[in-house]
């Protein structure tokens, strides 16, 4: 069963957003046991079960149209959310090719791509976008290739150049960040970029991840899940616009917590790019309210235990300080203490 695409969702102001029962069942709960700590939880990005979020390399779901629309709104106000250094042009084409190939193959009813030599024709039926262009010639597209294609994809994208045994952020489209700024971090090395993350450096997470990623090969992408919480189904929780959304955190009460508080999960994927040898880092974001999540009894029990026992440094870093207790208290009656099966499946 494929997704029914919603046409009127919003991720700001009136927050018209919800998950269908199908979307809830395929939600990637990031807790595989009843507690959480950082680890190098990287696995091959191989196809998962049918209808799961990893069935295809780039998941297109019921929120597609609203998410693309929200990206346009952000870019209009803050154009620097898209940036690419001049020497990243071949990586830009790599990304466009990767996304167009996969999207058209996996979602043929929504996207089509035909190629005659370097003459490519792309049709995005969901957004009603149609372009013919010459692959490799930026002047034949209305925008730079990376800008063009990531406006038509869900999730943020960062492109890292590899040199001197390190990765440097040198291009990207970031309109749905969990409190990090690509504009501030442009040009940073892998560990500089991740500098603010607590505890993980001491666990050598970044040393090991960097070593692993430097050797990542073409056609062998990898993935991991990361998570945080967000008040309201808001995609753009950037530091740039924090003055707008910061007060959301103080708006959570015992009465509204189940609908206001959301678990935000990032399906992070990494692809080696063939021409440029650069690395594409995709951050595909999923939002679920505590009320929706609790419709799966195992998830209610597990999330209750995980949030209740979360390390204080992570509570602070993830910005949960003001409302974590409300979430835990709301979930507590749904946790009868019975064991949960391992893994994150609904049971």
């Amino acid at each position, binding site marked *: 069963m494929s997704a029914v695409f919603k046409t009127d969702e919003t991720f700001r102001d009136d927050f018209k957003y919800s998950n269908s029962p199908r979307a809830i069942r395929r939600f990637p709960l990031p807790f595989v046991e009843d507690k959480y700590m950082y680890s190098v939880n990287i696995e091959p990005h191989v196809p998962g079960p049918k209808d799961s979020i990893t069935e295809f390399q780039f998941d297109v779901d019921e929120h597609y149209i609203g998410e693309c629309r929200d990206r346009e709104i952000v870019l209009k106000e803050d154009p620097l959310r898209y940036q690419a250094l001049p020497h990243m042009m071949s990586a830009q084409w790599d990304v466009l090719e990767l996304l167009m190939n996969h999207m058209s193959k996996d979602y043929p009813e929504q996207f089509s791509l035909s190629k005659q030599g370097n003459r490519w024709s792309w049709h995005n039926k969901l957004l009603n976008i149609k372009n013919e262009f010459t692959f490799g010639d930026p002047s034949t597209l209305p925008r730079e290739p990376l800008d063009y294609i990531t406006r038509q994809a869900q999730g943020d994208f960062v492109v890292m150049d590899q040199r001197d045994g390190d990765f440097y952020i040198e291009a990207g489209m970031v309109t749905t960040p969990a409190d990090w*700024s690509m504009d*501030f971090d442009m*040009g940073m090395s892998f560990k500089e970029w991740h*500098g603010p993350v607590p505890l993980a450096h001491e666990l050598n997470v970044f040393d090991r991840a960097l070593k692993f990623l430097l050797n990542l090969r073409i056609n062998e992408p990898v993935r991991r899940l990361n998570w945080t919480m967000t008040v309201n189904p808001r995609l753009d929780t950037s530091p740039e616009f*924090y*003055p707008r959304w*910061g*007060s959301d955190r103080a708006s959570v009460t015992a009465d509204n917590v189940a609908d206001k508080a959301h678990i935000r999960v990032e399906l992070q994927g990494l692809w080696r790019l063939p021409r440029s040898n650069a690395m594409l880092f995709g951050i595909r974001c999923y939002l679920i309210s505590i009320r929706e999540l609790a419709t799966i009894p195992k998830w209610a029990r597990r999330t209750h235990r995980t949030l209740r026992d979360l390390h204080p440094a992570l509570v602070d870093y993830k910005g949960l300080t003001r409302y974590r207790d409300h979430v835990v208290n709301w979930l507590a009656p749904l946790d009868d203490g019975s064991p949960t099966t391992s893994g994150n499946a609904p049971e």
Partner: protein
Amino acid sequence: MLIRGIKSKPVYTPLAPDLGGRTHLLVGFGVGAEPLTRLMADCTLAGVTKASRRLLYVTDKSASMAMHEMMRHADAGEVQLFKDSASLLSEFETILKASIMGTRLYVAGPEAFMGLVMRIAARFNLNRDEIRAEECGSPARRVHCIHCRAATEDVTTNIVQCVDCQRWLVVRDHYSRRLAAYMGVMIDAEVPGELPPIEEVFV
């Protein structure tokens, strides 16, 4: 006190001559005079000619009169003293425009000053291994407002008011070489007016 453990902060090391260079450009601020004087002596010992050394220096209240005199009579082929960092940076840029082949850059002073020098050097594609920097002097920070993108100079407190948008910013331990600044993020966005005590921390 110099704060350590910030992953995005550049690693600074004591200056030492790089014998691979043909031109040695020394740039200093305030108490940076001391490491530069030491470097020039080491250069002479290592056989780097006086003529290949060029010094740009700006004094400030952190430097004693004696230091200033030391710089005036520094052991370099060319010595230029400046009244403020803006005019030094402008001359520095002019020099890099003319030629950077075989140039080695040595910078000494507070991080806020060195960051501006290194930002210009990066613009001219000087590699990280062609630049040496030794931190000394005031740990006051240059703070980039993440909301309006203005820079507030000489920040010594944990919380500072942005010079442009006037928001109160908490200074995060996250440094950008490209912007030569630490990140400043609004402190009372969650509850307006709720400010923790302001303390002198970068002194």
